[in-house]
């Protein structure tokens, strides 16, 4: 199955990544190369096979843990905001979204 230019534009929009018009041709070609590689999977008979979502779920009984819903981390807001592109009064700043 092969992608079109429109597909690439749609995927790039979903992924929130700008692809300049001059690059779409190359991106399209490379994505189709990779999809050609994975297309082999579609012919495999997997009737009755349970999907394996987790590296150890083949072993059974190794479900992921849940913890009590309690705050365990200390408040380190200043340290975490020190690495943000733009903050003010303890808030993260983004371009205006409401007029």
């Amino acid at each position, binding site marked *: 199955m092969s*992608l079109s230019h429109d*597909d*690439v534009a749609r*995927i*790039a929009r*979903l*992924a*929130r*990544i*700008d*692809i300049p018009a001059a690059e779409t041709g190359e*991106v399209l070609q*490379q*994505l189709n*190369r*990779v*999809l*050609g*590689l*994975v*297309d*082999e*999977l*579609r012919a*495999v008979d*997997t009737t009755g*096979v*349970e*999907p*394996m*979502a*987790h*590296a*150890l779920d*083949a*072993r059974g009984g*190794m479900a*992921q*843990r849940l*913890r009590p819903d309690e705050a365990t981390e200390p408040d*380190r807001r200043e*340290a*975490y905001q*020190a*690495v*943000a*592109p*733009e903050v003010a009064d303890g808030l*993260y700043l*983004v*371009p*205006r*979204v409401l007029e």
Partner: protein
Amino acid sequence: MLNATVAQLARALGRREISSVELARLFLARTQALNAGLNAFITIDPDRALADARAADARIASGERGPLLGIPLAHKDIFCTRGMLTSCGSRMLSNFVSPYDAGVVERMARAGTVLLGKTNMDEFAMGSSNESSWYGPARNPWDLARVPGGSSGGSAAAVAARMVPAATGTDTGGSIRQPAALTGVCGLKPTYGTVSRYGMIAYASSLDQGGPFGKSAEDLAILMNAMAGFDTRDSTSLERPDEDYARSLDVNLAGLRIGLPEEFFGEGIEPGVRRAVDEAVRWFEKAGAKTVRVRLPNARLAVPVYYVIAPAEASSNLSRYDGVRYGHRAAEYADLADMYRRSRAEGFGREVKRRILIGTYVLSHGYYDAYYLQAQKVRRLIAQDFAEAWRHCDLILGPTSPGTAFPLGANSDDPVKMYLNDIFTIPAPLAGLPGLSIPCGFDEAGLPVGLQLMGDHFSEALLLGAGHRYQQDTDWHLRMPRETPLDTGAGK
């Protein structure tokens, strides 16, 4: 000292034959002298190293002893390190000074290691050559025109060049074992869930696993004893009793059943690799092990499965990089959506974007069942092949990589050609299994060949034991790369 193992260095420190500060200065001088040529480090931090070394010396002076106390170490730049640049090899995080330490960083610090710096890597651990790093490629100390492998290429090159006696890495589809093989060092990818992923920047969360690089299997056991263990902050960390990874170093090989999968000895393997691996098989047979033919019929589908599952998980994990809370933000944008699109377009490199786009596509409406769900089903078939094999053998042996180190740029134009480098390393992580790579010889060009040992879940001690026995009778792991002679950086 530069060529000593961690075990030997710990003995010298314990006997006060050398101080940790002296050791740190020795390795720092060499790292600084060699890094211009190798580009193995993204960050070298002499102040941090000397502070850690002074603290280790104080602990030693007070009578404390430990297998890693005072030992120089480097972390792959994927492990968040408080107060230090943690770039993940990406422009996106080229301004990210981490406000916290990863679980692995905490554990190694508690063990008393001395942190020299952070090593180069493929961007977000996506690559098999280190060429996708925003900081430029690390180079192979055996031949500077060749790649060290990836994604943990900087850690592998640093240990190979004796810039550090040990380093950390991560393996998703081979990112510890393949660079270990290509640079002639040892690397272990542990069972999924044994090493904490807390603070280890996520690529494909159902596969990512941290592990050690060292010069010997014994050193890897020592490093694993400090690295592995339960961490409440990682929901996939396994709650099991601590184990001694060095407990089987004297394993008796007589009667051990070694599986040789025909799928790992077929076409497409370079003759030099084939010859060295066959030679290692004969060594194990002479040592009393019994070799048995096994089959992994679905292993040929591992690469396609991986290139659905890993990009799918990556597209989700990397959606956090939006230029709001940390990381790169574009200088100019029209509105919020435009800020996301431009920041991500500028912050990510080509390979990372390619995998995000593939992942977005295979998860998108109308394609999820055909690609993602189908890949998860075939993933189970691959895991079942291994489960069947363990009924006939105790471990599986084969080449780590079908070839030796390739020239820079050789696979740059064709992503699929690059992906096929990992054909023998991808099956184990899909099944959550541990894998060890140790040096087993050289090809005609004098480039190192890696031998891979795989075992059932939690069989690390056995793999390391088999590797250690092999290394007591061979010296491939002690050979020095020709481009980085021991006198470089000396006398400073």
